[in-house]
């Protein structure tokens, strides 16, 4: 029965498709250095999808209503997620925010205004042009 064989082949192709998608593509997955001894404000699956929405809500609360600090503040994100070598959450391909945003090709423009380093001016000046090079 050639017709049944065709159908079987088609079904097999559909079943196999997700497996093929799970294989590594041309772009390597970002390798993130995360301290698992502490916990974020939500589980990683939630954070991956919702962090932009959380930050957006928080931004209005902070700018318009003066609610600052706490674990949901962007400064707190940076305190935790700054890269250990470079001390920044952006500006290098390995940096926490930068690595993922490069992978998914989503422009990261928070740090055109926000400081990507925890207490940058306290610890010493960063080289000029480093951030703007990565934030084009």
């Amino acid at each position: 029965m050639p017709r049944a064989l065709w159908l079987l082949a088609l079904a097999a192709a559909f079943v196999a498709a997700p497996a093929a998608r799970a294989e590594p593509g041309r772009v390597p997955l970002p390798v993130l250095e995360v301290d698992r001894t502490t916990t974020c404000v939500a589980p990683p699956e939630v954070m991956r999808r919702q962090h932009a929405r959380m930050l957006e809500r928080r931004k209005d609360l902070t700018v318009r209503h003066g609610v600052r600090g706490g674990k949901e503040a962007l400064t707190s994100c940076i305190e935790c997620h700054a890269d250990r070598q470079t001390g920044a959450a952006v500006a290098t391909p390995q940096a926490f925010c930068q690595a993922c945003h490069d992978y998914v090709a989503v422009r990261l423009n928070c740090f055109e205004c926000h400081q990507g380093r925890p207490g940058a001016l306290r610890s010493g000046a960063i080289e000029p042009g480093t951030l703007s090079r990565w934030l084009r």
Partner: protein
Amino acid sequence: MAEVSPNQGEEPAPSRRRLLAAAAAFAGVAIAPGVTLVEVARAARPGEPVTSKVRWGLLIDANLCQEGCQECVLACNRENGLEGGTRPVDVQWIRKVELKERATGRTLGLPVMCQHCANPPCVDVCPTKASFKRADGIVLVDRHTCIGCRYCMLACPYKARSMVHEPITQQKPEVPRGKGCVESCTLCVHRIDRGERNTACAEACPTKAILFGDLNDPESEISRRIASLPTKELRADLRLDLGVRYTGL
């Protein structure tokens, strides 16, 4: 002769006593928060939304302000991570204005910053509502919605606002700033929200010519000084109801 009522000189009837007790208890509840909670905790605590119970402002004493002194300007630059350049395109949140009275030759220097109007023209003209007044009277720019059109800079009678023309990398973490946005004095809003009750300029002034405080609280030092000293608003004819007042002009 009037007849003496049998109840005179005795305690009130039980029902009347209950009513008085209830009234006393009610009065206690009503007075206690009025006296303690409202008066003491007028300003929002850190982490709470700001309220219109307070109105932050400055009182600047032009008699105490020293000619040639730039301490407030430098302190503002340090506090907010401003570059401190003096080109026309550089950002300036406080300017020292030197005045000279022609008839008498009396010279006067005073700092001029955003006057934190109650009726701010910059907020009126902003096409994206990025320019806004917070509940506690501080006029700010929401950089997330500012499109850099600079209409507010034209509308401001005090030239208080600046445009950021170049990319910035040295921002302070608590004062985000970026190219393409208009900005001005924030009355050190990050300090106020942390619970501090002084601005960088007032703290740095060597002669204490700048006084920061709550204009709504009649017990605050700024309110007491405004009530006793002759103070002026700059361009009072515009009737903008300023948060910054000057004395000794």
